[in-house]
Structures are given as structure tokens and as C-alpha cells.
């Protein structure tokens, strides 16, 4: 079923963080804890679904030349709504996410989906795409946040109630600092590529990663040339 296909593609095949490598700014900045990651992911998902839906409905009304400003207006509206809602109902989270909530306006996933998908597909498919992509984004952030929080703080805490602690572990503060974000993301991306290459080998096909994740597109060393 088409709806179902558009829904699940964002989780793995076109995962915005691990496959498309989009939305890197929040992915590196707010994933210091699972709580922040979850909040950021849900906020972005809400904006993504709403903007996809509205863009899809308006897609025949928007002139091609000014489509980008129109998308931005739509997105900005929903971001403002989310910003105000979070300020009102999850004030602590809003404070710790800070500037990154307003910055969802310029998140390339949301604008990218509006441009590449919602402006060309009907309402119900666009909503499916929004849900799928948002869930994929949230999943990516949470995986990253969990890794960093576990290694960097030695425990995972969600809303002060749920708490897992690594016993006997000395937290590596580096992991919840900015460099830790880059290291964790890089290792996770590398691990993803490795798993897929192995899966492809088992299936007897050749795994070719997207160009920006491929050794051949990098000029640092001559490996893979």
C-alpha cells in the first residue's frame, strides 16, 4: 500500500539523519540527552506533518517562482505555534532547547520535504511522508542522544522518572560536549554503512553508499581510490 510505503521509508531507507544526512544542526546540538532529543524530534515532527499537509493542499495555488517564500511562511507559522505551545506546557524543555526550536524554520528536512514531496503529492501521502520522516528524524535524534547521554553522563534520565544508570562507569564528559556529537554521529554513520555493506554482501549485491557517505568522495586519504 502506497500510504504505508511513504510512512515507513523515513524510518530506515531514507532516514533523514543516517541516510540523507539532513538536519545536522539540531542533530549535533541538542542530542546531549534523550529528553532533549525526544522533545526536538517531536516538535519537528509536528511541524513537518502540518507543513506537509498545508503545502500539499496549497500546491496548485502556489506560483512556482515564489514557492520557497510560501513554504517558509507556512513552516514559520507552525514553528511559532510549537514554540509558544512548548513555552506554555513544557517550559523546562523549551528552555533547554533554546534557540533550536525557532531554528526549525530553516531545518532542511522540513523545507526539503515540502519542496521535494508535499508540493507534488496529494494530502494523504504528504501526511504519511511527514509522519514517517518525522518519526525517522526523532528516531535518529534519540539514538544519538541515548548514545551520548549514556557515555557522557553514565545514565539516561527521562522527565526525572525513568532512569537507567551504567553501574561502575566513569562518565566521559567529552561525549556530551560538541566534539562528542561529531564523534558519535560519525561512528554511527560508519556503523550503518558497515552493516549495510555486510547485508548487501550476504544478498550478493554491491552496496554503494550515497555519495556524501562514500570513501571515494573524500580527498583526505587514498584509501578506496
Amino acid at each position, binding site marked *: 500500500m502506497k500510504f504505508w510505503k511513504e510512512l515507513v521509508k523515513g524510518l530506515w531507507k531514507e532516514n533523514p539523519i543516517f541516510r540523507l544526512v539532513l538536519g545536522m544542526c539540531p542533530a549535533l546540538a541538542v542530542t546531549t540527552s534523550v529528553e532533549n532529543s525526544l522533545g526536538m524530534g517531536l516538535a519537528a515532527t509536528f511541524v513537518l506533518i502540518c507543513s506537509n499537509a498545508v503545502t500539499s493542499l496549497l500546491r496548485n495555488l502556489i506560483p512556482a517562482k515564489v514557492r520557497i517564500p510560501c513554504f517558509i511562511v507556512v513552516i514559520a507559522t507552525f514553528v511559532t505555534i510549537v514554540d509558544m505551545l512548548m513555552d506554555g506546557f513544557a517550559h523546562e524543555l523549551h528552555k533547554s532547547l533554546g534557540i533550536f526550536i525557532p531554528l526549525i524554520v530553516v531545518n532542511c528536512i522540513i523545507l526539503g520535504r515540502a519542496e521535494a514531496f508535499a508540493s507534488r503529492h496529494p494530502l494523504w501521502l504528504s501526511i504519511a511522508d511527514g509522519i514517517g520522516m518525522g518519526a525517522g528524524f526523532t528516531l535518529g535524534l534519540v539514538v544519538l542522544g541515548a548514545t551520548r547521554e549514556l557515555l557522557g553522563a553514565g545514565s539516561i534520565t527521562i522527565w526525572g522518572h525513568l532512569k537507567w544508570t551504567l553501574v561502575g562507569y566513569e562518565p566521559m564528559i567529552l561525549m556530551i560536549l560538541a566534539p562528542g556529537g561529531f564523534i558519535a554521529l560519525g561512528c554511527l554513520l560508519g556503523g550503518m554503512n558497515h552493516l549495510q555493506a555486510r547485508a548487501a554482501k550476504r544478498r550478493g549485491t554491491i552496496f554503494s553508499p550515497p555519495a556524501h557517505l562514500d570513501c571515494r568522495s573524500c*580527498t583526505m586519504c*587514498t584509501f578506496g581510490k
Partner: protein
Amino acid sequence: MGATIATFRSPGGIHPAYHKDLAAEQAIREMPLPSALIVSMSQHLGKPAIPTVKKGDSVLRGQVIGSPAGFISAAVHAPTSGTVKLVAATPTASGPRADAITIDPDGEDTWIDGITPCPDWRQLEKADIVNRIAAGGISGMGGAGFPTHVKVSPPPETLIDTLILNGAECEPYLTADYRLMLEHAAQIWEGALIIARALDAHTIRVAIEDNKPAAIAAMQAAIPAEAGDAAVVALKTEYPQGAEKQQIFAVTGRTVPAGGLPLSVGVVVENVGTTLAVWDAVVNGRPLTERVTTVTGGSIVQPANVRARLGTTYADLVAFCGGTTGPVAKIISGGPMMGFAQADTSVATTKTTSGLLLLGPDAVHAYESQPCVSCGRCVGVCPMNLMPNELSQFLEAEDYEAAEAYNVMDCMECGCCAFECPAHRPLVQHMRRGKAQVMLNRRKQ
């Protein structure tokens, strides 16, 4: 006049093991005529000569068998009398094939008629001197092989004030020029006077590395009274002191512009062997049919400096020097720094064959290209001030534009960088490939 010590002030330079003792004290030996001579038409820089004889013709020594194919080219003469056995494309020492004439010597070694000696060359016009040099088929005998008559006839508006005789012989192992300076100092000086007269140069300098005190003394003692401003300059022993631009800087303090010719700073550099050949051609009227070659290396039984006819195969040279000891891992035409490795000894000597080197397996260095570790040694030793480390990485990535921007075309392939590279990278080969490709790209535009 005393010998002056010039320090090597231009950048870079290395100190390889010289191994000159193998053949330095061996007086030049005349080699008897071999059973066949393979005379290449490509013995000089520029277009190969055009064969003027065909299979079955009989030729006399000194007879023109290849006529120059343009201005930058040189005539080729029969090195002995005999019969032409074959005219065919044959591999040369530097790789590409060129026409070569195989001559079966008749053993008589008869000179062709019309050899006219000219002891009072001082009466000759400048143009006549140049004509006699051109008729002698002389080209640079140091290695590059630039036709000498072109060098000694600069454009009229160019003023040449200095002639430098290059006796540096900075390549390890080679001793041919050293022996020439010891044994033919007077003739070399007379040749120098002839060239200086053709150029109107009033200053003559003989540049010799200070590890050859005997040659310095011999050349010093032979300075003729009429020479005017003439002196022997002792250069600090360092490779590549024999490179033209570096030598001009060391001797005169003048810097040849990058990409420019020595002419532009009023200097002409001639190898001492070439100067001797000029003397022979102008004073005795004899064209260039033989040269002195150092046959040496750890695998040669009797290392020697051999005067052999042009076209003598390397196999004949090796046999004349007593054959080889043990297995031969590398055969090099020329010196170890800039010479060409050969697959076998079937190639024949040319006017540029300054040496033949046979090395055993223990003396051979293998290139195992490892990643560059940026130690910067190549940058420090490059006499042209290039950055071979960066260049080789550009060239490995086939980025020829970047290589050109980093002056790959100024590389003279002296080999200092690869000599010092701890990662054993084939740097010179990268440069060669890069230079060839940049030339190709320029021609396309």
C-alpha cells in the same frame, strides 16, 4: 690565477655515496672495434636525424649517415668503415624507438676523404667555427645532448660574456670527464678558447667539484696564456652541482629565470667532453665518432673509462671490461641519479652515454610507495625549491592543474627528493608523468 672556492648557495642538494674510486684511477682505454655497431639516429635532443644510407651501402669513417632533421638536430656520422647491415627502428636507452643503422665494420677503419685539419682556427670567422661544429655533429655529451652548434650561435642581440666548462661530474660513479681533464687538459682549454671566440665571451670558468683535486690542478696548470680572464672554480662537492642553472649560480651568482635559458643571463655552459669534441672537430676536422664512457658498478669485473665508437653495444662494453661478477639486478645507462635503467645490454652507446652502470641485487633500491609522512626532506633538498611532497600527492590524484600551479614544469628530475624520501615514494616518476601530461594538456588548448 688561483682556484676559487664557490660555496653552493642555491637551495637544496644531497650527498650521495660517490663510489668514484672504482674507476677514477683507471686511465682511458681504447676499445677495439666490436663486431657490429648500432648507430642510433636519436643521439641528441630534438628531432632524430634522417638516415641517408640504406642496407648494403658501404660507408667510411666520418661519412654522414644521418642528416639533421631541422635546426635543433645534429648530423650522425659513421663511426668506422664497413657495410650497412640494417636500417630499422630500435629501442633507445631512454625508451622510445628510433631509427638505427647497423654497421658491419670491415676492420680497415678508413677515414673518409676531405678531413681538413685547421690548426690556425684563430683565423676562422665565427660562422666558420659554428659550421665546423655543426659539420662535426656535436651535441652535449653530459647527458641532455643539446646540439652544440645551436648553443654557440645565440641570437645576435644576446650578449654572452661568460663560458663555463662543466667538469663538476656530480653524478656518483662516473669518472669519464675527470679522466678527460687529467689526460687532455690542454686540448680542452683550446676547445674552450674556440667556443669563447665563437661566442665573443671574454670570461672562461672551469667548474670542478672539490673532491677532484687532481683535475683542478691539471686544469689549473694548463690555463693557456692567451686565455685572458680564465680560472678554475672549485665547487663544494654536492649533488647536483653539475646542473646548469645551479652551476651558473654557484660560479657567477646569476640566477637563470624559471623556465628561461642560460643565454638570458649571458652565460653558456659546455661539458668538458663536448669541449674536447669541439676541439677535435675544429682543429682536426674530425666529426664526433667516439666518446669516453665510464663502465663501472659493483658487478663489473674491471671498472674502466673506455673510449669506444658510438654505436658500441652495452654487451660489448661489458665484455671489454671483463664481464660481470655474480647476478646483475640493474643496468643503468648514465649515472645512478638521472640515468635510465635498461632491461638488457642490447642497447648501444650514443653521444650522451656518459656511463654504464651494472649493479648487483644488494645495491638496488626498491620503491615501495608508502603514504607521504610530510617529513619535508624533499622540500629541503629540492634545488629548484619545489614541494615534491605536495606535487606527488596532486599527481597521484591526477590533479594536473594543481601540479602546474605548484611549478611541476620547473622540475629537472635530478632525483634529490626521491633519494631522501623515507617513504620510498617514486617522486621523480610522478613528476615525469605530470610534466608529460601538463605538456599534453597545454598542446590541447
